[in-house]
């Protein structure tokens, strides 16, 4: 729809770098656990938890708590809304970058 959005019009939930990293990782899988997310995004446990909660509140991810053997395991997955929002963000961001590059050249 609005593919030439300005950064101020980007989805603020996703635009934040840490949350953007989480969304990018989750876009590449059905589900990833906390340990993998922490390694891939290089966030601390506390920061990762905080941003996961924010994304969950926005309805962009589901958090599943389970057990792997006797160890508790937390994993996260994009919801259909989250996947759609991430796609839209990428489209807008890509379009904006191209616009800037065109203006520069």
């Amino acid at each position, binding site marked *: 729809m609005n593919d030439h959005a300005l950064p101020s019009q980007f989805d603020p939930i996703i*635009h934040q*770098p840490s949350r*953007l*990293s989480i969304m*990018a*990782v*989750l*876009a*590449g*899988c*059905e*589900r*990833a*656990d*906390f*340990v*993998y*997310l*922490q*390694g*891939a*995004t290089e966030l601390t446990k506390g920061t990762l938890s905080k941003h996961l909660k924010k994304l969950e509140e926005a309805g962009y991810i589901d958090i599943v708590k389970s057990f*792997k053997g006797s160890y508790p*395991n937390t*994993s996260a*997955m994009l919801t259909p809304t989250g996947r759609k929002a991430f796609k839209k963000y*990428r489209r807008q*961001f890509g379009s904006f970058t191209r616009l800037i590059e065109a203006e520069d050249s």
Partner: protein
Amino acid sequence: MNQTVDLDGLTKATRRREFDDGLIDFTVGAGYLVLGILAWFLFSPGGVRWYAIALLKNRTLTLFGLASLAVLILVGARGARRAIDRIRASTTWRVSGFVKPLRMQAGWPTMVLSGVVTLGIIIGASWFMAIGRLGAENALRTLVASSGIATGIVYFGMGVAVGLRRYLAVGLAGGILSAVILFMPLSFSVAWLVLGTIWIIVLGVSGAWALRLTLSANLDSSSE
């Protein structure tokens, strides 16, 4: 600030994770070999004779046996998947975290292209057969070759989609070697066996390469 987040890199690295250790390559290669051996047996003159005799003796039991074989293959594939998950859970992924891969790794354009190429080869072969320029055995062989070529296209497309150079090589090598079957004087049954052998070799080499890298990376990180 978002320029610092490598969106593509993060997504592709996560998608690649399923293939990083090469275990999937061994499984798919083994699957191809099993299918190749089964098809070789079922389509060989001896196999066809055995099947015909079995059908005459007990039709229900024979059909049940064949259906059981199909179920056994599916159960085997599922078992292999579980075994891989267990190996990973107790070794590499125990430390680095667990990822459930996307169901569709190659993407629609690749799947459509591979389907179109397969159909094209089959339609072409049928046309050549209809005008009498291709024998039945040669036409049947195109079925085998086209399934190998289609697999090669899927692997190449997957290599592009997830940024895995190993799969570009697998796709090219497997696809080209499968295409060679078109020009070899092989019977339909032997062509299946050759196809299975091609893919177990190509994927076996690819899997061994990846596993070696994973193991050496794990050794390096544990010795640090």
